[in-house]
């Protein structure tokens, strides 16, 4: 099926991007989880592919014409890697040259993300939060007690097959969590930051829930708390902006958070990254738990019906 190829494709795309930095971390992290979600959704729906392609020739013609127009459009674009392209002339030099004095964070991507463009990032975090809420609204199930026993039995029989995997994962999970924290707090000095750390943290929890069963994972990390944390992250991010507003600066102007502007910037970026990390991690966990809960619910239903 298309799943394996999909995983390969996304991986190889991001390898092709390699000359660049942080985007890659993010990409590799994204490749794992989105492949997993895609695969989960495929198992939940249909795997046979009996789709009739409607009018492939028409589609092909549309695609070819659009592609030709786009390629014609690229003829005026600046060459790959040329240093005097418009994109490199306007705001980027300021970010590159002045941010060391203004913000003092070694990783330019973090400083642009957290400080110069904090508004954008806030918007993105709200979008992620909204998507989490949407998945919750679409897929959350109120579990009936009589299905529980069946689901548990199914889980146990699944787990008997994966003994070695479970032990290795038990050893690995603390390291993954620790590494997520490292990425979170190392974001000022190297590749990393809240987005990546959140996804890695969520990946550890997802790994646990996959191998040990959803009900066990829910006992460790219960879902209302996760939902609360997702909201808390957005709230933390927003309140940093409000506090800087109250202190007499602009929204997300961290200079006023402390006596020393640079220290204020550091504090602001740290808080914001923490908010981003909390939100991303808990939203990913919510999404995954709900998909998995829906799947097990469906399996329980099917077994109950037969």
């Amino acid at each position: 099926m298309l799943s394996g190829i999909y995983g390969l494709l996304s991986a190889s795309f991001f390898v092709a991007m390699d000359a660049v930095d942080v985007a890659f971390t993010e990409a590799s992290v994204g490749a794992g989880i989105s492949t997993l979600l895609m695969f989960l959704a495929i198992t939940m729906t249909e795997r046979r592919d009996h789709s009739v392609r409607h009018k492939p020739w028409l589609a092909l013609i549309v695609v070819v014409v659009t592609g030709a127009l786009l390629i014609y459009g690229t003829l005026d674009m600046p060459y790959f890697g040329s240093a005097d392209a418009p994109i490199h002339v306007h705001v980027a030099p300021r970010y590159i040259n002045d941010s060391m004095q203004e913000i003092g964070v070694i990783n330019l991507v973090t400083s642009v993300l957290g400080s110069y463009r904090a508004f954008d990032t806030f918007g993105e975090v709200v979008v992620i939060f909204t998507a989490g809420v949407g998945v919750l609204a679409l897929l959350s199930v109120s579990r009936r007690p009589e299905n529980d026993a069946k689901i548990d039995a199914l889980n146990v029989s699944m787990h008997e097959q994966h003994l070695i995997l479970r032990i290795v994962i038990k050893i690995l999970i603390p390291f993954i969590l620790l590494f997520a924290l490292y990425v979170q707090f190392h974001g000022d000095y190297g590749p990393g930051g809240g987005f990546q750390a959140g996804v890695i943290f969520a990946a550890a929890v997802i790994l646990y829930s996959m191998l040990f069963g959803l009900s066990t994972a829910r006992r460790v990390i219960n879902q209302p708390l996760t939902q609360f944390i997702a909201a808390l992250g957005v709230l933390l991010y927003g309140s940093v902006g409000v506090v800087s507003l109250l202190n007499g600066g602009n929204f997300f102007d961290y200079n006023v958070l402390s006596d020393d502007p640079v220290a204020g910037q550091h504090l602001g970026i740290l808080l914001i990254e923490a908010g981003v990390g909390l939100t991303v991690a808990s939203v990913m966990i919510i999404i995954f738990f709900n998909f998995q809960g829906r799947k097990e619910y469906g399996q329980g239903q099917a077994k109950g019906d037969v």
Partner: protein
Amino acid sequence: MGTVVEISSGFFLLVGAFLSVSGGVGVMRFPDFYSRMHAVGVTDTLAASMILIGLMLQMPESLVVVKLILILLLTLFINPTASHALAKAALHNNLAPLLDKSGDNNAGDDSSNS
């Protein structure tokens, strides 16, 4: 001293490269799933460790070496486990090994040795 380190690092890198190429050829040429798995599972771990050791010798900077050791440990943990789980899942879902003519190079060898 310097040249000895240089030469040994080059040696390790070359051995790693050779092993991974042979694994790749094996994946392309072998007839069925389990023998392909054998080719990958055995060579992959050793090739990864060889290349990582070669890199470690190149750069005597402490933090980088620590990170490389971390990657090495992860590879040693993850690779055999993954191939074990893969073979087991394949066997469990009734994917029969190719048993007939060429004798006994098939069995679900899960490469936990490396």
